[in-house]
């Protein structure tokens, strides 16, 4: 059981790279059409067909990356904090936060410098937001988020140990509430004044993501009971996964029709968020590692460094292809394959170089 979490981390980082690569695939289809001749058009994205369904389904599944990271973190922090006092827990946490913060600051700075070279200027407030809220690039939000959860983890662990059902139920309700402003935004609805309180949840990643960290903690403490329960109700559980998956897809199509958008990121949908919770639990309970997992585990062990550095890598690759190999932009599946391969492979290569050069003395500060 424990070892497959390393595999899950590996799959999750590949999913994260894929999910962010789709942004460039959609950008190519929507805005770079003059660079290639292909059947991949903006219209093709908005109507259900084999191509658009492939992109939407894979994107929906790949969106489980961050929930999976949080689940693994919740599980592992529970392992570290089990039978520790709050004081001992914070001693453990201090070092961990340090090795999360240093690479985050370095890669945020690299991103800011890259954007400045591109011509973007930052105000002081924007720079503060970059480091404090993870706004160097969209996926950087994950680091302040996980640090908040780690800081809360000694208390969360004790609370979950005592009241697992109550705490999880509250977290699910808060997560559902945090999705509602997303629907208002997509459908361009001005909410009633009585619903103004929802704006509290609007921009809080903690509210919308806490549930997966908590599921990790609950799973660590009660895994025997959870495994026995889910194995007993296997078919019902599989039905739930399939049901939330299909409803999530239908929901996205309806939202696209109603809003006129030709692409919607499904990660904030209430139904899809339930789907992620079920999918991760299904993996943790039913997945059996086989002999071929070690490469994915290798990637999983380096997931944090890949996560921080893949954003720029895939952006540079996509822009290079725009200039040098524009015909690939229209071959969406090949384009995505190249971006994922380079998005995972390039950080791994730089990590390897860091290990065999004098940079090895600061390896953990660069990559975590």
């Amino acid at each position: 059981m424990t070892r497959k979490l390393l595999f899950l981390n590996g799959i999750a980082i590949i999913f994260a790279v894929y999910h962010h690569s789709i942004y460039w695939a959609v950008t190519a289809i929507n805005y770079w059409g003059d660079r290639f001749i292909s059947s991949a058009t903006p219209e093709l994205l908005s109507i259900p067909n084999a191509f658009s369904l492939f992109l939407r389904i894979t994107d929906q599944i790949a969106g489980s990356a961050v929930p999976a990271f949080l689940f693994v973190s919740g599980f592992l922090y529970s392992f570290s904090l089990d039978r520790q006092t709050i004081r001992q827990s914070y001693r453990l946490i201090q070092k961990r936060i340090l090795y999360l913060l240093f690479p985050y600051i370095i890669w945020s700075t690299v991103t800011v410098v890259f954007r400045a070279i591109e011509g973007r200027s930052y105000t002081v407030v924007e720079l503060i937001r970059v480091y404090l809220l993870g706004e160097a690039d969209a996926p950087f939000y994950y680091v302040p988020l996980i640090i908040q959860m780690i800081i809360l983890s000694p208390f969360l662990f004790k609370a979950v140990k005592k009241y697992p059902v109550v705490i999880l139920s509250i977290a699910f309700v808060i997560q559902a509430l945090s999705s509602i402003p997303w629907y208002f935004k997509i459908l361009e609805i001005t909410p009633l004044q009585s619903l103004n309180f929802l704006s509290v949840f609007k921009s809080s990643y903690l509210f919308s993501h806490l549930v997966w960290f908590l599921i990790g903690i609950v799973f660590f403490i009660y895994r025997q009971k959870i495994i026995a329960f889910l194995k007993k109700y296997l078919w019902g559980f599989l039905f739930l996964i399939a049901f939330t998956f299909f409803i999530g897809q239908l929901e996205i199509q309806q939202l696209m029709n109603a809003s006129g958008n030709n692409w919607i990121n499904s990660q904030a949908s209430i139904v899809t968020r339930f789907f992620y919770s079920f999918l991760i639990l299904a993996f943790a309970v039913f997945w059996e590692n086989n002999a071929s997992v070690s490469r994915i585990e290798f990637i999983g062990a380096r997931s944090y460094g890949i996560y921080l550095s893949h954003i720029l890598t895939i952006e540079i690759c996509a822009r290079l292809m725009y200039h040098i190999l524009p015909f690939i932009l229209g071959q969406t599946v090949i384009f995505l394959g190249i971006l994922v391969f380079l998005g995972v492979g390039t950080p791994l290569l730089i990590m390897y170089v860091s290990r065999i050069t004098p940079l090895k003395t600061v390896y953990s500060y660069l990559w975590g």
Partner: protein
Amino acid sequence: METQTIIQKFILDELAKGRKKTIDVDDDLLGEGIIDSLGILQLVAFIEEKFNYTVPDEDVVIENFMSVSALSHYLDQKLASKG
């Protein structure tokens, strides 16, 4: 090579890169930040590959992974009982 040396070398070469140049067998691995929680997973994977021994879930507790000596002691016991 004895279990303790193998584990110590793996931690030093793979997990503590850039964190510590030397580790003592009694150093608190998590407490001193020599490895992180993901490092525990890597240790479990390494033990399973190197010693051909599957670490049961119930044995993945902080006491067994506290230090190199605690881990090698646990592993020596398990490998001996396995025969």
